[in-house]
């Protein structure tokens, strides 16, 4: 009996349908304290004074932490990938978005925790804020980030570049140039389980962290880096999560809860309210995308110029990674031999944006596919045939020179057409993903095609 390909039941299905799955909020540890955070009410401000002494003295308050309590306050989640750090765990001297955590408290009950947050004395001096990424490089744009208006560390550049072929030739040669602008919105991950952590300081000195993270080892690294402890001082217990969609790659609640537990010497649970989840947790990024496509009257995509602005919010977090991925995939499911892509990660005073389902590429699909429909409309061609003609084929190369080995633009498009009874010309219905040749290999696509057998098969990462 084979298991692969079988409609086997969900491994945890019975637990889910009998209410027995244990999520972080269902873990019970005696003596657990409640955590609450003081969050910035301003989009951008200097913190001119903070005094937690009154809060600390309230009966029932067991710990108050601020930036001063964090062994390494500024740690970048992608430092290992060469993205430098810019975001503090707790705001230090300034706040850059509304909802940014400034301090956190642990108390015997939720009412006391709220009282303690209210008892923290804090003064701000508001600063001008920026929200429109298109104005990030305007002469009068406010200064909001120590690196300047855009992320400056794409090697020597302040933007991700993708260049291939001769884009000048393509625009010269084009019969028509189609230009469009596309703006996918920020959206919420909105999992039913809000961000949550429960941290138990063990007698051994280790921390047991019950976590909703989507990435236990990733979060383990983040926590250990902020706390400046080796990886065996922290044990994450998780693996079962009430919805993630990318937002729980952020390690949003775990580290601050660890600090509180260490300071209080007591278990501490921090469950974000739904309001916090909506207003202070990260979102999918808003994007601004402008495309100019050089096309021939018979529907060949000769070249593309594309400019993308990615709204990072207040800190870089995963944005440089997402933008690079966006650039790698900016031609969509099609082969365009001549491209010129520039992508910028622009800082604003909104909640830092982060990974969400389709990170970096959802925005490509939203922009490029509507652009393709517009091109077909402009040229008076079938939008199906336009896509099939320019489809990724075996041996074609991507904008960043990857040789395609098993592209499926053709099969999925044909299957969709068949399903809805779309009638296509016989030269299209007969198409396969096979290497381009004959009429499908016009001169302008010859140079981008890899020699037969050029692709070196990988081994699935076996090591």
């Amino acid at each position, binding site marked *: 009996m084979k298991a692969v390909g079988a409609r086997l039941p969900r491994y945890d299905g019975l637990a889910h349908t009998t209410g027995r799955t244990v999520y972080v909020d269902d873990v019970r540890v005696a003596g657990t304290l409640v955590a609450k955070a003081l969050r910035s009410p301003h989009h951008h401000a200097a913190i001119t004074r903070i005094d937690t002494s009154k809060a600390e003295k309230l009966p029932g308050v067991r710990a108050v932490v601020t930036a001063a309590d964090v062994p390494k306050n500024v740690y970048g989640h992608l430092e290992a990938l060469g993205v430098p750090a810019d975001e503090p765990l707790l705001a230090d001297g300034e706040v850059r978005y509304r909802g940014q955590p400034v301090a956190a408290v642990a108390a015997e009950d939720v009412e006391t925790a709220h009282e303690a947050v209210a008892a923290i004395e804090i003064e701000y001096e508001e600063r001008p804020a920026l929200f429109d990424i298109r104005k990030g490089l305007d002469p009068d744009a406010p200064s909001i980030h120590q690196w300047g208006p855009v992320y400056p560390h794409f090697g020597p550049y302040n933007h991700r570049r993708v260049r291939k072929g001769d884009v000048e030739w393509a625009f010269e040669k084009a019969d028509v140039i189609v*230009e469009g602008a596309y703006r996918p919105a920020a959206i919420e991950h909105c999992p039913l389980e809000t961000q949550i952590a429960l941290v138990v300081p063990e007698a051994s000195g280790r921390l047991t962290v019950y976590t909703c993270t989507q990435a236990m080892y990733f979060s383990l690294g983040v926590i250990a880096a902020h706390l400046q402890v080796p990886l065996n001082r922290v044990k994450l217990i998780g693996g079962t999560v009430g919805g993630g969609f990318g937002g729980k790659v952020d390690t949003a609640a775990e580290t601050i809860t660890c600090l509180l537990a260490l300071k209080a010497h007591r278990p501490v649970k921090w469950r974000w309210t739904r309001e916090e989840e909506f207003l202070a947790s990260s979102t999918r990024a808003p994007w601004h995308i402008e495309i100019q496509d050089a096309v021939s009257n018979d529907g060949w995509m000769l070249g593309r110029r594309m400019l993308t602005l990615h709204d990072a919010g207040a800190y870089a977090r995963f944005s440089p990674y997402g933008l690079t991925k966006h650039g790698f995939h900016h031609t969509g499911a099609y082969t365009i031999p001549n491209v010129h892509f520039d992508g910028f990660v622009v800082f604003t005073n909104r909640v830092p944006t982060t990974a969400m389902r389709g990170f970096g590429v959802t925005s490509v699909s939203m922009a490029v596919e509507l652009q393709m429909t517009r091109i077909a409309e402009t040229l008076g061609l079938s939008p199906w045939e336009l896509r099939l003609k320019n489809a990724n084929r075996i041996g074609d190369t991507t904008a960043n020179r990857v040789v395609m080995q098993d592209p499926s633009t053709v099969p999925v498009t044909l299957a969709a057409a068949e399903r809805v009874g779309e009638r296509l010309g016989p030269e299209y219905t007969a198409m396969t993903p096979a290497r381009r040749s004959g009429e499908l290999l016009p001169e302008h696509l010859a140079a981008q095609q890899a020699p037969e057998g050029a692709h070196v098969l990988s081994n699935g990462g076996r090591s």
Partner: protein
Amino acid sequence: MARHQGRGFATIEYPTGMNQNGDPTQAWIKLKPDGRVDVFSGTVDIGQGSKTVHTQIVADTLGVPYDWVTMDNSNTDSSAVCTGTFASRGTFIGGNAVRFAAERVRERILDIASKELEIDPGDLEIADGEVVAKGAPNRKISVADVAGAATYNYGELISGQGTALKPFAEVNDDDGSVQAEPHSAVSYAACVADVEVDDETGEVTVSRLVQVYDVGRAINPVLVEGQIEGGAMMGLGLGLLEESYPHYPSAEHRGEQFGAYLAPAIEDLPELDNVILENPSVDGPFGAKAIGEMANNAQPPAIAAAIHDAVGVWVTEYPATPERVLRAIKARAQPRREGKRVIFDEEISLRTVSANGGAGFLEV
């Protein structure tokens, strides 16, 4: 005032694994003395079903019944490194990690069975929990007996570990090129959206989504369907309903409750028609690619194209809320033509909005 039907479609691609790689998943497996299989993996199950899928992969790689396999992904002490559940990497990379570990366990089972049966390991195969001589089905030993012999006669814990890691692919910052493939596989999908647009209210209703996904191999077809259906509704939200900043770029007026933030609800559910294609990947587990993330990418542009088909206007700011649809209908904007240039969307372009015409962003 009328309701107009429209159809649009989109074709998309999406990579498997972290962009530029460098994202290991490691797993290890041990056998109990009765041959039952304990798998330790750090892959987090956020509902997508990785525990189920990984169990299926291990069962077939070993040749044991599915219900012999238990999966422990509960903590960082017993499991090895998994970079995480994101980048559509769970089935391919996490699945390869447990597959590679299971292959090593399989080698150990065959080696010990070989001693017990006095048959060369190459002449043995494992199916349904039994090690059987090829061509001589009566010469066999159960995996349970192999595990018992390992434990009590040979002094061996049958175990195996596997790591799936494609090394980090450096990018050339001048031109974005890479020397090595910066992903594990690429999946493709197409989506057809049928919509109805009310030209009085601007409301768009999606009546049907036809969706075709190439997932390489559907390890568990019903879990693949779950991703397709869940992704469809998330894509519908992206296309029509959801935005954190309803007056973007303003950061004010954010919804802070479900009544004010429009996550797709059950009444938004259109008819869904799902088609799963299997164009296997070269090196994924059993030919699998991925499904999770791409599942919300194709609907928004298909819906936007369908709106154009229905009422002849382009809504290029997502989501296509009733307000945006009505504004577009009212404006009836036509592209400006300048020589061979056909220019849409000038009003939102950087050149128009930025005080310096986009200097610094443009022409770099």
